[in-house]
């Protein structure tokens, strides 16, 4: 709760700061905030669940879309920093490979924190500004939930339901995007972010599984320049 309050304070402060600089177009020293949706879609290459398991027991992870707030700050007229905050992405985990057809085996929430350095083409007052970005991502996983089926497949009748955890990882992301300045203050923002993300799933049975998630992120948002 404190965290949220702090964020609000920061955002208010950001607005104040932006107004103080008196910038009229997105440019050096200017903050922009846009709000929209992000579809996070893992591009899964699953490793096999370690022994004891049916050979090539694998997993798949569903996509999820959540609201997102994209915060941008112009270091120069062409170089900017971007980050985003949002609600956790709720992903369903399905059996795949040898255990395809077993359906949903678990769920997990993902919280990717990202910081990008961007290069924005054209001048700050251009209507259309394509941009590219490169950044760091910290992928956090929480609320990993097992299921009856997961226990049935890993420790049936053992009396201990199977749980799992997914390693949090630092990684990197690349971005391409487009900003359309509809009015001097309002803009539309679209971007695609590809993140390289390999992590490990650890089961309470002592089994593990390597997962290459490499998520694709599709963001659409409407923003305001402060």
């Amino acid at each position, binding site marked *: 709760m404190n*965290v*949220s309050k*702090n*964020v609000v304070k*920061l955002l208010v*402060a*950001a607005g104040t*700061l932006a107004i103080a600089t008196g910038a009229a177009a997105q440019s050096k*020293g200017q903050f922009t905030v846009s709000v929209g949706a992000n579809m996070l879609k893992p591009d899964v290459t699953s490793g*096999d669940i370690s*022994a*004891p*398991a*049916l*050979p*090539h027991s694998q997993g798949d992870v569903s996509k999820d879309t959540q609201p997102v707030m994209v*915060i941008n*700050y112009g*270091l120069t007229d062409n170089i900017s*920093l971007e*980050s*985003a*905050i949002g609600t*956790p992405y709720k992903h369903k985990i399905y*059996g795949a490979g040898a*255990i395809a*057809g*077993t*359906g949903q085996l*678990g*769920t997990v*929430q993902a*919280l990717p*924190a*990202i*910081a990008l350095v961007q290069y924005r083409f054209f001048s700050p007052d251009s209507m259309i500004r394509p941009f590219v970005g490169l950044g760091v991502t*910290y992928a*956090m996983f*929480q*609320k*990993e*939930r*097992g*299921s*009856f*089926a*997961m*226990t*049935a*497949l*890993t420790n*049936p*009748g*053992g*009396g201990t*339901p*199977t*749980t*799992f*955890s997914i390693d949090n990882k630092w990684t990197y992301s690349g971005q391409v995007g487009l900003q359309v300045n509809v009015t001097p203050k309002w803009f539309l923002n679209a971007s695609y972010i590809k993140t390289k993300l390999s992590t490990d799933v650890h089961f309470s049975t002592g089994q593990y599984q390597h997962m290459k998630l490499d998520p694709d992120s599709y963001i659409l948002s409407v923003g305001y320049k402060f």
Partner: protein
Amino acid sequence: MRKTSFALALLTAAVLTACGGSGPSAGNQTPKTKFSNQITFGDSLSDVGTYAVGGVAALGGGQYTINGNNTSVSPELTGKNYTTLIAAQLGLPAPCAAQTGLQGTASAGFSVTVTDHPECFNYAQGGARVTNPIGPGNKALDKPGAVSLGQMTVPVVTQIANHLKKSGGKFKSDELVIVMAGGNDALEQLGELSAAATAAGGQALAQSLVTQLAPGTANPATGAAAIGAAIQAEAAKPTATPQSIITAAVTAAAQNGSTTAVANAAAIGTTAGAAATAAGNAYSAAHGPDLVKNMATAGAELGALVKNQILANGAGYVVVNNLPDVSISPSAKAQSADTQKLIAAMVDAFNSQLKTAVAGEAKVLYVDLATVSHDQATNPGPYGLTNTTDTACDLTPAKNPLGSSLVCNAKNLKSGDVSHYMFADAVHPTPFEYALIARYVLEQMTVKGWL
């Protein structure tokens, strides 16, 4: 400068929002289908203690695996059968044997009153066949003078009939029925084939010895009779071996005036032995196809029982485990390549008839344990199996009077870590392998949409 740190503060805020989340938890552990009961028909692979009485219980046994809860030694040594694990996973009471007792040698503790247990629904019995009431371990197969275990070996057809008698002729549509049989139809027939082939080989051995030795005796007619009598006398001894029979024949020939018998004993023995082997192999080759045909019949019979006795009487969920690949078991591996091929053909014949019989039945889940067990033997690593060829139990008579996992426990295991072996004895799984079977059955039930 201030603005840069401000941006970092925002990033930090984004990271911090991630905090306060909770860690892993079990989630919903309730199956989609709430089964009211688990009813099992089958053989030793599903038996949860039919013979866990008298002398068997005293020897620390009762199930066909490494008996007893030895999880303090290794977490895998649960002593649990797959039916027990599945019941536990489904939230059902632990299955118990619907009948207990033994009909064998009283002095060994193997004569215990046969008792029905109306509250128990696992009808599977070690030695049980599909329809033939005489399976391995049945008193009808006892050899004179040997200790008899006296397994009841009530066949699956009668197991189902007994349940229907108990349940008013009906299955409930929310009961889980598990069927698994066929192994004893294979083992019993192989045993009979082996005995008959050995007898054919013995005859050929005797014939060859007489033919070779009689002409050298003083009077070939009486010599032949004497040699034949010596062979018969030796063969009747429990200690008889081909070599002892050869020796007896050579001795008889020498006593009847043969001057060359002793000198040529080795060559004569080799010739006779070769004749015996050839005759035995010829017998097996000639009669092997009959076994395959009989297994096909048994498979079709089991399929018909599933349809006409189980489904037709109202069952809603029937798991039909096919016959695992017996040809990869230590029992088969101890036999000739030809016999192993024969066993594989028998398993295939049984399973293909069974599969055909239940094909298209929406309430039947046909679980292909044959393919999985075959894969386990050739590709043990991913399954976590460390050994798929040796037995975990020490089956030497001094350690295991029955030579069976039925009386195997932590006290008569082979030395070293056998917890991840596939086989407890020559045909029966370890608790770890039973757990793999349970997982596979449950996986298939999940794919079927039952869980």
